[in-house]
């Protein structure tokens, strides 16, 4: 299964295998993403979502195949200029750093030899912080923000590089449902402005509600397409190795756990049209 690519191609993976210490985590991956697309990568923990991100960042060994970003081959020696938002679980929230310092790190290699930022960089940072609604927190230490505000700080750090491609590793993990919705709407807005967005997530329903294209992976690509079409019990079983219920209602696709207790009717997976 694959998605036809329209317009300029920004990502191309051809027969790619990649992993750590000589052991591939993903194998024989073929993927094309056109400029301006909004793509979600879903799959169980350890299935290779983050590894695929790292391939696009040029921070992981590839054992076979090729990876191209913006027409240039990616490797450990040739890293592309992209915006990247890591999993927030990796951040040391007690680190003595303020919101504006974190955002300016996005231009650490472009803003001259002095420790202080240039006026133009500061102006760009303020514009971004205003846009993301966190300007009033700019002098705050990052621990003192809510989960959604913290996510926006790292999004601002990625956006200050004016990237054509934005990669986000599980941007909605560990945040409440309202914050998750806010983050995804923000990403949709960026996508509408022409930024190509690729994110990994565990949130199948959020992906189905907000994203036009999703790639299901489990050490390789299981399915690729519109979530309304590819979220089937068969694809989800091959992706996650378990049974799930797919509910379709009024154009919406919802994925639910296979219930043990549900109004007296126990167990079973399948597709339900309401």
């Amino acid at each position, binding site marked *: 299964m694959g998605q036809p690519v329209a317009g300029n191609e920004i990502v191309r993976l051809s027969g790619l295998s990649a992993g*750590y*210490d000589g052991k591939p985590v993903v194998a024989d991956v073929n993927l094309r993403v056109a400029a301006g697309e909004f793509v979600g990568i879903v799959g169980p923990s350890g299935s290779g979502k983050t590894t695929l991100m790292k391939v696009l*960042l*040029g*921070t992981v060994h590839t054992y076979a195949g090729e990876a191209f970003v913006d027409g240039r081959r990616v490797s450990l020696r040739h*890293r592309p*200029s*992209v915006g*990247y938002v*890591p999993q927030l679980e*990796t*951040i*040391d*929230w*007690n*680190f*003595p*750093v*303020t919101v504006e*310092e*974190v955002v*300016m*790190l*996005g231009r*650490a*290699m472009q*803003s001259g*030899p002095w*420790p202080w930022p240039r006026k133009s960089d500061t102006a760009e940072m303020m514009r971004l912080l205003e846009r993301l609604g966190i300007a009033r927190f700019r002098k*705050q*230490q990052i*621990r*003192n*923000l*809510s989960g959604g505000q913290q996510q926006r700080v790292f999004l601002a750090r990625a956006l200050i*590089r004016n990237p054509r491609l934005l990669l986000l590793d599980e941007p909605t993990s560990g945040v409440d449902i309202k914050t998750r919705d806010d983050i995804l709407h923000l990403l949709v807005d960026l996508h509408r402005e022409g930024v190509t967005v690729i994110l990994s997530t565990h949130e199948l329903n959020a992906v189905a509600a907000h994203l036009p294209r999703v790639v299901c992976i489990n050490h390789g690509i299981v399915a690729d397409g519109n979530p309304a079409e590819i979220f089937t019990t068969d694809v989800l079983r091959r992706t996650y190795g378990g049974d799930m219920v797919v509910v379709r209602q009024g154009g919406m696709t919802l994925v639910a756990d296979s219930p043990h207790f549900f109004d007296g009717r126990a167990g079973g997976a399948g597709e339900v049209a309401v």
Partner: protein
Amino acid sequence: MLFADITEPFEFEFFRHALIAATMVGALTGLVGVFVVLRRMSYIGHGMSHSVFGGAVVGYVAGFNFYLAAGIWGFLSALLINQTTRKRQIGADAAIGIVTTASFALGVALISRASSVTRNFDAALFGNLLGVSQADIWVIAAVLAFTVGAVFFLYKQLLFLTFDSEVAPVYGVPAGWIDTVFSLVLAATIIASIRIMGVTLIAASLVIPPVVARLLTDRFAVMLVLSSLIGAAVAFSGMFVSYYWDIASGASIVLLSAAVFVATIFSVTLRNWIRTGRPVPATRELTAAEAKALFD
């Protein structure tokens, strides 16, 4: 204590030399220690000093210059630790333990074989304000100047790598090159500090001033300045304690640093209590509401 008592030690050249050297060493270890603490590499200061001790003994036995022998040994140890740490199965603490204790053991073995060497390394183990020469002062000043320059011109890159080592290379920060410079600076700091602090006590001077500074500020740049000033102040004061109470200079500086740490913990806890209306230990993470109450 009379004014004459305070000025008395200045009559001695050895004290003037030691005071200048210790103050610079305090500022140096305070500055470098910020990166050591925030990178959670506190153990590396302890290990590196032991490693340098081994190199110094080898150099002494072989008839090399102290700084040259200890410098090359320390730098190679730092690189070896970095390389060993990159093996995914070996943690940084284990890598430091293996490389540095082996080096220290080599030094001890050589001393055991040549008993005449022992006397000369007492000062290296615990610090001694006697015998700090003009040349030592110049070496410390050069290391301090280089370190300040490196931190100034590589500030953004060092901050990025220390804060988010996974993403910094993605954004173009040359992590390998910067880490090598940091290893060089750390090795040079330890070598320059050995005569004042002693091998066994350098780790404390790398850790305590940054930790005190962290309790006092939430800003990285301020932490760098505060830690350097605290390090310099306790080293300056510690030399008088060392002189008047006849205590090894490293021990007096570390004891004074520990006293400053305890006083800071106490005062920050008290401040939090007054502002939030209930006891909040200085070492516990504040909730968002508590932090707001403190900083608003």
